[in-house]
């Protein structure tokens, strides 16, 4: 295209004296049938968009957005993780060649080269051919990059027990103390078997809080005996009747807590 400087214009206007403009190829020159965008094609796009929206809303309804407990900077045991689409960068920084004294390589050089290359792709891959088999270098580099990103993401995500992490970090409003019925026969059982890990207010100490759970009586009985996640089996020592009282006490306290909110 012509550069701006030597251009001549028609009088005091923006119309160039010589009309050499870049005009994209008219679609009627392409083989096959064209279709009017408005309204024919737009109607079909609208339908495709609606189907997509229904699928998206099903996802939203099936899986409510997660929320953990309020930020607690003193929680030294918390395992920090970024959102899933940053996991590959996070994982990269765990390798020896990309951490400690090589931190700059992992944090700056490698992502910089990858994303810089992506951005400058049109200037690195200048050949005329558009088909992938006409440009083997750029295509294979891209495939390599995709494989690396998927693999790093998998490596980072597969070692995390996501369900246990969510379970240990349930959203409980700060300062919301539930009234614990210490007269309940279940509380005595709780005191003997569970209090040391789950706290006097069911607020959680070494183990997670027991407020805000959605377990049934039967499920709690099973967990108390068989354990779950990091909780080993055999924590409960007592009779079947005491186990029943304990589970009913925990469920009742949870129902009470749910009503208070």
């Amino acid at each position: 295209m012509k550069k701006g400087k030597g251009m001549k214009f028609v009088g005091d206007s923006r119309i160039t004296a010589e009309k050499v403009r870049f005009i994209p190829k008219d679609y009627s020159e392409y083989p096959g049938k064209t279709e009017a965008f408005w309204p024919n094609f737009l109607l079909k796009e609208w339908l495709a968009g609606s189907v997509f929206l229904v699928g998206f809303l099903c996802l939203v309804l099936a899986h409510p957005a997660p929320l953990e407990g309020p930020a607690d900077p003193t929680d030294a045991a918390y395992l920090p993780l970024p959102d899933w689409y940053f996991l590959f960068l996070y994982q990269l920084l765990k390798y020896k060649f990309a951490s400690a004294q090589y931190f700059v390589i992992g944090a700056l050089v490698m992502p910089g080269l990858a994303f810089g290359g992506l951005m400058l792709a049109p200037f690195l891959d200048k050949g005329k051919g558009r088909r992938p088999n006409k440009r083997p270098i750029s295509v294979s580099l891209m495939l390599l990059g995709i494989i690396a990103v998927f693999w790093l993401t998998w490596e980072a995500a597969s070692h995390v027990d996501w369900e246990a992490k969510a379970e240990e970090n349930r959203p409980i409003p700060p300062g919301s103390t539930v009234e614990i019925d210490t007269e309940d026969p279940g509380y005595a059982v709780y005191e003997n078997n569970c209090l040391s890990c789950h706290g006097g207010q069911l607020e959680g100490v070494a183990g997670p809080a027991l407020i805000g759970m959605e377990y049934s009586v039967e499920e709690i009985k099973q967990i108390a005996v068989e354990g779950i996640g990091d909780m080993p089996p055999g924590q409960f020592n007592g009779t079947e009747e005491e186990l029943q009282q304990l589970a009913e006490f925990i469920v009742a306290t949870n129902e009470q807590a749910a009503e208070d909110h």
Partner: protein
Amino acid sequence: MLQKIYDWVDERVDITPLWRDIADHEVPEHVNPAHNFSAFVYCFGGLTFFVTVIQILSGMFLTMYYVPDIENAWRSVYYLQTQVAHGQIVRGMHHWGASVVIVMLFLHTLRVFFQGAYKKPRELNWIVGVLIFFIMLGLGLTGYLLPWDNKAYFATVVTLEIAEGIPYIGEMTKTLLAGHPEIVGAQTLTRFFAIHVFFLPAALFALMAVHFILIRKQGISGPM
């Protein structure tokens, strides 16, 4: 009636060329899934835009309840999630939309890349597109902190540590983002909120405008 209004406006500001640019054009067969189903790969860009619109709208409604302050941020999200009618759905749309938009952007980028559609004359639009990708990642990064729960807080601490590790400009970058060289707290939250809600969307809108104007000006790349 509509025609009359159109004519009245058109007579004064000549909107027909604008209308022609936006709507009155032909869609070639090779991008039309109705003719050739494999052309659905051309939908990824449009779907990215669609999810972006969902993000803008749901985000606007979220700010009606959200309070960017360390005492109340978590509580306001918790209230929205548990008490407000349809709050869970609006927050769910924004949460899942943030992931879906990244997936769609990724697929759109792959489509353009493997078809070699970024070659002359479309180099500039490719660069604009990659910049949009970066902006989206920035939106994801800053938005992740806003609920001020444990995962948000600790992810941000790690992010800021990584920023701090950059030689020469690391500490400046960290202070700029966090509002303080040491503390990740109230200032960090308000800065991330401002970046998430004002700075990055402004950049996103400008880049999207350029992206679309260039598409209309250059047309869709031809069949392979």
